């Protein structure tokens, strides 16, 4: 139960409409916890310093917007939506060169953040969602939601149970309209891929996609491209095998990139899955503040799933000294949870993630995954057999 201290009682309510948050001098002096809504309508609790950081972040978002507009002015609108180099085989050499230059500019630019107004368009195009949608008839999503209306499955029952438990208190998500919209997206997807059906965690991912994308249909396609192309496969299937693989790859990466931390945590018998399960399944949406999460997603949709490792490693790296002085598994989890909840400045995290972790290619990560898969499958198989024999005993 993170952050349920009595400080909450002292919380001051801030109106969401106020663009710049101005904590009172009293709040400053008393070092009170204040409650306010962030850019995406989430209620945030933090101290006065956190409020100031968020104000700075808003200003940086505005500045970053100006950079994007300036580039549009010089390179033409939608320059970033041009085919990537690999697809443009038949392009002339000069065009190839400009495409390459654009790709380099774009990578750097995206790591610095996509302005919120451009996110729907850029995510949709760069993630491959647009392409995925273009391969089926225009009416696909409408037909799907109509066809599954009123159907009851274990997945729909679980979805109904989880709707009110998805970011409760959010100004739009936690309304009848928000619930109904999120339900259509999740139920629709559970029928599109019955191997996945519905897995807890997807509710958070889909909810945040709904807040960013302009339409629920686009949110649906973003969810589809994430699960089918961006993330490792089988991340959300019944035994979460893909997620197990990612945890093992992550454990090895931690040992390689942050050996001091890994050695210490091993001695405490701390297993990374205690914190990383939530990170990998909710793609940080339940752990990091919203703008920080979306900045991670900006890069995720352009550079792929390896980004999740960069970010997860960065969180450990940022707290190296504290972590190696921790004595218990509980302390470790507390440090990491507190850190993620308060990462209001996305650049603080992303700078570490991309400048201090060292490069990791998608290729090496794929090899790591291949290496871990047999062990994961064997372990899951063993568990299944154990539980099956239990069922036989009962008969």
């Amino acid at each position: 139960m993170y952050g349920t201290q009595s400080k909450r009682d002292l919380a001051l309510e801030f109106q969401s409409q106020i663009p710049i948050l101005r904590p009172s001098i009293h709040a400053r002096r008393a070092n009170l916890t204040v409650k306010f809504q962030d850019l995406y309508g989430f209620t945030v609790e933090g101290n006065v310093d956190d409020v100031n950081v968020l104000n700075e972040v808003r200003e940086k978002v505005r500045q970053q917007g100006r950079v994007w507009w300036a580039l549009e002015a010089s390179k033409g609108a939608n320059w970033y939506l041009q085919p990537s180099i690999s697809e443009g085989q038949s392009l002339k050499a000069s065009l190839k060169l400009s495409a390459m230059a654009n790709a380099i500019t774009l990578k750097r630019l995206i790591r610095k953040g996509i302005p919120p107004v451009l996110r729907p368009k850029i995510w949709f195009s760069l993630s491959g969602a647009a392409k995925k949608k273009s391969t089926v008839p225009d009416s696909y999503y409408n037909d799907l939601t109509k066809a599954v209306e009123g159907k009851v499955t274990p997945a729909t029952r679980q979805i109904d149970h989880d709707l009110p438990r998805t970011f409760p208190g959010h100004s739009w998500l936690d309304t009848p309209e928000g619930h109904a919209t999120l339900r259509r997206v999740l139920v629709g997807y559970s029928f599109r891929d019955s191997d996945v059906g519905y897995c807890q965690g997807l509710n958070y991912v889909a909810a945040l996609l709904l807040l960013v994308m302009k339409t629920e249909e686009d949110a649906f396609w973003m969810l589809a491209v994430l699960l089918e192309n961006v993330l490792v496969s089988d991340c959300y299937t019944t035994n979460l095998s893909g997620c197990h693989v990612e945890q093992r790859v992550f454990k090895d990466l931690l040992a390689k990139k942050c050996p001091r931390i890994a050695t210490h945590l091993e001695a405490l018998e701390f297993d990374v899955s205690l914190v990383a399960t939530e990170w990998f399944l909710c793609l940080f949406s339940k752990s990091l503040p919203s703008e920080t999460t979306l900045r991670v997603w900006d890069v995720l949709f352009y550079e792929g799933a390896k980004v999740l490792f960069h970010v997860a490693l960065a969180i450990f790296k940022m707290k190296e000294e504290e972590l190696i002085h921790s004595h218990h598994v509980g302390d470790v989890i507390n440090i990491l949870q507190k850190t993620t909840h308060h990462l209001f400045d996305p650049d603080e995290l992303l700078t570490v993630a991309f400048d201090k972790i060292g490069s990791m290619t998608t290729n090496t990560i794929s090899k790591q995954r291949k290496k871990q898969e047999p062990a994961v499958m064997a372990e899951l198989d063993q568990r299944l057999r154990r539980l099956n024999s239990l069922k036989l005993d009962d008969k």
Partner: protein
Amino acid sequence: MSYDYLFKYIIIGDTGVGKSCLLLQFTDKRFQPVHDLTIGVEFGARMVTIDSRPIKLQIWDTAGQESFRSITRSYYRGAAGALLVYDITRRETFNHLASWLEDARQHANPNMSIMLIGNKSDLAHRRAVSKEEGEQFAKENGLLFLEASARTAQNVEEAFIKTAAKILQNIQEGVFDVSNESSGIKVGYGRPQGPSGARDGAVAQRGGCCG
């Protein structure tokens, strides 16, 4: 605050049976019908006094959906007590108890004390599992048993405290080697005379974590 012992508890059971609500009722004495879904690990902590000894309970709460059960192995490690929860209004949550127990036996300390809780006793008009069935299951499997309500707080306090009393009894009977942290028990600072074996080997620790 100093304590004689720190016990690690885990709460297990199907999704939606009220694990997080039981925890919140115990630690904060309030009921929050709508709360965030638990995916990773959440903590709660509270001091209790048993036989005039201050004991700190550190309670771990996690996801209940079937697929997550393949991940929670490290969650069981070092737990001295477990609350195994089902919902008296949903039969299937009772039917799954055996496989939860199997996971617990596989991953937890064999001496872990387990309290079976039939939650949502305030919804007795929608009851799908009788109290006798709960009692019977507990008896067959050597578990403590209570029906409780996280909403009205009925038996919530008792569930946590009776489990702690059982653990304490086990310590006094020498069932646990408290010098070994995998027992889920830590010995605190300023502890008065305790059972032999605990005094010499145990590392005195102040519980710095989890509030």
